[in-house]
């Protein structure tokens, strides 16, 4: 019990003192996971929208694949990205292995299905009549589509938060493809693994507290969105 309480109080002290090692790691985490989710949005929103609206043979399989992507094990993604980027691998010439680019790639693969799956569900939850009505009122195809997405925007924001919460707390993939290099590819989760192994519980605990706060903020954001009453504006606004 002693060690536990001591580590927590020491962790709080570290957080207040603004330890540069800690905050550099936190910054790297936010940078890697933030960019991964941003790229995930760019890939996931079009994919989810398309799957939600299009009708084609094999669509059920595609939807099932996207939903499976929600439970992709990070270590497996790490393994694939590692082999792809390794010097003998097909993309070895890029020289990305053990860089933040490799970590962003792996986390993008983990985040994109979140965005795609939630977009898909959101797009399907908007009544299709809305688009038909908009078209009838003279909107172009693209305008109708944008309107549709606007109606689903709360769910999209939730997709961002869910994807971000998932990748920032992931350790398997970033450890494998990033290598946990001090000052370069060390992020909150990989640093917690290392500092715990080194018995530096206070540092590990301080990072753990920060991670909890970030995860809590992401979830509080989702909850607020879900509680918010969607107010439908008139179509002519």
């Amino acid at each position, binding site marked *: 019990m002693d060690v536990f309480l001591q580590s927590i109080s020491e962790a709080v002290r570290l957080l207040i003192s603004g330890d540069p090692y800690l905050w550099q790691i936190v910054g790297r985490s936010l940078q890697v996971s933030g960019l991964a989710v941003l790229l995930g949005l760019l890939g996931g929103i079009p994919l989810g929208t398309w799957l939600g609206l299009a009708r084609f043979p094999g669509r059920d399989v595609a939807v099932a694949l996207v939903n499976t992507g929600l439970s992709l094990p990070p270590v497996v993604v790490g393994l694939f990205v590692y082999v792809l980027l*390794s010097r003998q691998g097909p993309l070895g010439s890029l020289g990305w*292995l*053990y860089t933040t680019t490799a970590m962003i790639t792996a986390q993008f693969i983990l985040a994109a299905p979140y965005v795609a799956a939630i977009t898909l569900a959101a797009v399907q939850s908007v009544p299709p009549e809305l688009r038909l009505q908009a078209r009838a009122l003279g909107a172009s195809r693209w305008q109708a589509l944008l309107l549709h997405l606007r109606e689903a925007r709360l769910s999209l924001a939730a997709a961002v938060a869910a994807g971000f919460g998932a990748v920032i707390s992931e350790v398997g993939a970033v450890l494998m493809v990033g*290598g*946990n290099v*001090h000052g370069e590819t060390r992020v909150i989760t990989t640093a917690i693994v290392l500092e715990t*192994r*080194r018995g530096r519980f206070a540092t590990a605990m301080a990072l753990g507290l920060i991670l909890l706060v970030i995860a809590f903020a992401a979830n509080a954001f989702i909850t607020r969105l879900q509680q918010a009453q969607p107010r439908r504006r008139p179509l002519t606004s």
Partner: protein
Amino acid sequence: MIPRSPVSPFLATALLSLTTLCVQQPDEIVLASTTSTQDSGLFDHILPAFHAEHPGLRVRVIAVGSGEALRIASRGDADAVLSHSPEAEISFMEAGHGESRRRVMYNDFVIVGPPDGPAASCGGTDAIPALTCISELEAPFISRGDDSGTYARERRLWSLAGIDPEGDWYLRSGQGMGEVLMMASEKAAYSLGDRGTYLSLADRLDLEILVEGDPLLRNQYSVIVVRRAANRRGAKAFAGWIISPAAQRLIGDLGSAGSGRPLFVPNARAE
């Protein structure tokens, strides 16, 4: 009166299994050791013989870095330690955490690097000039950067060379020996590793030995019986056994998977 609720049968089962666990515990010896011994297959090779000789005992190996192994032991979370970090072991004994410390075996460290790498001319049998040469060329070097015995040795070699490695060329990875060698191979970088791990991975690595044979690179393993051990009787039995002639012979028999060269030289009996 105990209130009757649907939860209590579960609780009873849980308590029962917890009690069983506690009763079985004394027979288990928790051995804190290093990733290098685990990865080389040493325990798979020698433990069956120990278990055959002591049917009531069971060794559970926790493979971590040497520094961490000693730290786990100082908290009383391990019964015995098999590590390779002489300075850390001596301070462990001086702090009164250990009851006894005995030599078991040794192998050696090697400095490895890419074939025809930038520091190819730094090679030889002397570690200090080689490291000086690598740092002067700022050839990429990947360090364990953790609390392992290997990192402790690396730091000692740098300090003997009077160099404080800093800069873009010097990366501190914070991962295990195998991962660091893979990383060195991928990045065409230099590294210090134990020969056993290097040999076990050699056919997958694009790395050659740059420096070997320096007495400063000798890697001595020792066994420690922990004073606060929960299972001190078991720990003593294990420590006594691993320095016995039969166990020492077994250790000497273990060859690397690829080359068949011995991975460890037993020296508990040598003077």
